[in-house]
């Protein structure tokens, strides 16, 4: 009962292997072992009278779905899977930073155009926030379009970048460093045009300025919360896109017709289960490619969606750390405001160090936890995927609580003494920001890429 469509076993096995490889938790040696198993199983089933595609479908089904296998191997070897995830998280952080640099001018332009037009402050604030969100939505839509197409060239570029972590890191560093200057020159070029739109140069009403400031403050908190909520929502969406039934069609489509009971018993005599026999017989009856379900590809879109989940997670995590740890650390510097310059420098340095140390400790703690407790971290992931809305609400409530608490703390600490940021403090804030946003992510990216590469190159003992 050969299928009419030509079936290339080697091609099918290559595809199967590539799908598993793309899920990211299996090493080359483990893939070798599983492929050996699959070949062995196929030849036994073929010898018992199944066609090669049928044998492939049954053997692959017995081995387990790609997702099941990947999940089990992740539990057994969490370091590898988490290294790759961390890599995408850092990449997401860098992309988010780059996007915010690019996205910054648009709300700014909108603001410049309308701020002097005498509009209501609340309207202006809402307009500014919406313009910012629109830039982000546009960027996300573009990114989605970019990753959901099949593109060999793009995949090749990503692979090449991963193979050359040092060059990639240097390129990213220079590129991201240049981006703000580029944007500034674009703004300068656009200035004469902007002047035409600005029209009459009425001074900004101080009351409007105050309303605008509070809109910017609460708007940024709202944006952060949206980031946080996006993680489980996107994870849930990616999960639904990725998870496909183990066999195509509903189970009822595998019910046998009266005449097929005999053939099913014969196949069961060959060591097939009733399900497997039904799958084969239904495939023969409808002359459908029985191999289809086993070979259904892990789509590019699904793969990139999962990467996007980790990228957003990385950006959201760092934003959370920023306002829950790094910003409060500035209280140290604020407390010493009226002191001598040297003391102010020391306190500011201490603030930068304290913020970074605390954030680093939290990240290291999280890393240890996910490595040591793969089952628990997997169940958190499961909650995010199966109940995305509940998880999003829980995260938003927790983060909003931290955010409001922190705002109150900072307002209390800075509020009465806030007569200007102070030159020394603002200088150190700039240094700290550069360190956090550029140097550390790129250093992390380099380190993770090297680690990932060394795991990838882990050779099979016999080679």
């Amino acid at each position, binding site marked *: 009962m050969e299928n009419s469509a030509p079936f290339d076993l080697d091609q099918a096995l290559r595809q199967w292997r590539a799908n598993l490889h793309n899920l990211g938790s299996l090493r080359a040696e*483990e893939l*070798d*072992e*599983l492929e*050996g*198993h699959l*070949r*062995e*199983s196929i030849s036994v089933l073929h010898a018992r009278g199944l066609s090669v595609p049928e044998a492939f479908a049954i053997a692959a089904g*017995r*081995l*387990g779905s790609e997702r*099941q*296998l990947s999940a*089990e*191997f992740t*539990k*057994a*070897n969490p370091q590898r899977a988490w290294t790759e995830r961390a890599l995408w998280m850092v990449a997401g952080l860098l992309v988010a930073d780059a996007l915010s640099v690019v996205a910054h001018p648009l709300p700014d332009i909108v603001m410049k155009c309308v701020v002097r037009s005498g509009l209501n402050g609340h309207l202006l604030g809402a307009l500014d926030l919406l313009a910012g969100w629109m830039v982000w939505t546009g960027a996300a839509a573009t990114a989605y379009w970019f990753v959901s197409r099949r593109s060999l060239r793009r995949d090749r570029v990503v692979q090449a970048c991963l193979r050359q972590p040092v060059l990639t890191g240097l390129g990213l560093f220079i590129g991201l460093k240049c981006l703000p200057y580029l944007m500034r020159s674009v703004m300068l070029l656009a200035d004469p045009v902007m002047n035409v739109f600005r029209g009459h140069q009425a001074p900004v009403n101080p009351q409007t300025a105050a309303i605008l400031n509070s809109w910017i403050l609460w708007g940024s908190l709202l944006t952060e919360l949206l980031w946080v909520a996006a993680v489980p929502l996107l994870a849930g969406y990616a999960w639904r896109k990725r998870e496909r039934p*183990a*066999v195509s069609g509903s*189970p009822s489509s*595998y019910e046998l017709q009266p005449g097929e009971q005999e053939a099913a018993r014969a196949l069961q005599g060959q060591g097939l*289960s*009733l*399900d497997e026999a039904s*799958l084969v017989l239904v495939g023969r009856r409808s002359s459908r490619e029985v191999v289809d379900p086993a070979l259904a590809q892990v789509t590019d879109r699904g793969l990139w969606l999962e990467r996007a989940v980790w990228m957003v997670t990385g950006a959201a995590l760092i934003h959370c750390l920023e306002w829950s740890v790094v910003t409060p650390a500035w209280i140290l510097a604020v407390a010493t405001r009226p002191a001598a310059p040297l003391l102010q420098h020391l306190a500011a340095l201490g603030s930068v160090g304290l913020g970074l140390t605390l954030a680093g400790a939290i990240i290291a703690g999280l890393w240890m936890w996910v490595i040591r407790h793969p089952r628990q971290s997997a169940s958190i992931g499961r909650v995010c995927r199966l109940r995305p809305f509940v998880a999003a609400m829980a995260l938003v409530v927790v983060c909003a609580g931290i955010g409001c608490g922190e705002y109150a703390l900072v307002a209390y600490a800075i509020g009465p003494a806030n007569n200007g940021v102070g030159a020394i403090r603002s200088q150190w804030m700039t240094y700290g920001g550069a360190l956090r946003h550029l140097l550390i992510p790129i250093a992390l990216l380099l380190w993770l890429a090297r680690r990932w590469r060394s795991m990838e190159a882990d050779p*099979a*003992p*016999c080679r």
Partner: protein
Amino acid sequence: MPSGAMYSVRMLSKELVAASTVPLVLSVLAQGENYGYALIQRVRELSDGRIEWTEGMLYPVLHWMEKEKLIEAEWREAETGRRRKYYRIRKEGRATLGTEREQWLTVHQTLNHLWKTQPRLT
């Protein structure tokens, strides 16, 4: 695929399969070195098809046992020309097997006593 109800009488529960994997692997390997596919077939034969592993799930367990030094592995070329990873039990593995054996026998004997006095339990 439909499953569960149809097999619940014959097949072992998921939890019992998970708990018995390590002693089963150790017991098979105690009889001599073996590779993944043959190991699964052996267990399936001996259990008369009632212990059905999702085959791929065995490998992470084997690798974990290798890391715990219960077994050791070696890539070799088989007579068919295929490269296979053969697993062999180590001294630590035999000790673990001894402990596992005692524990499983204890459960077995206890249940046996109970079921002898209450023969109509099922």
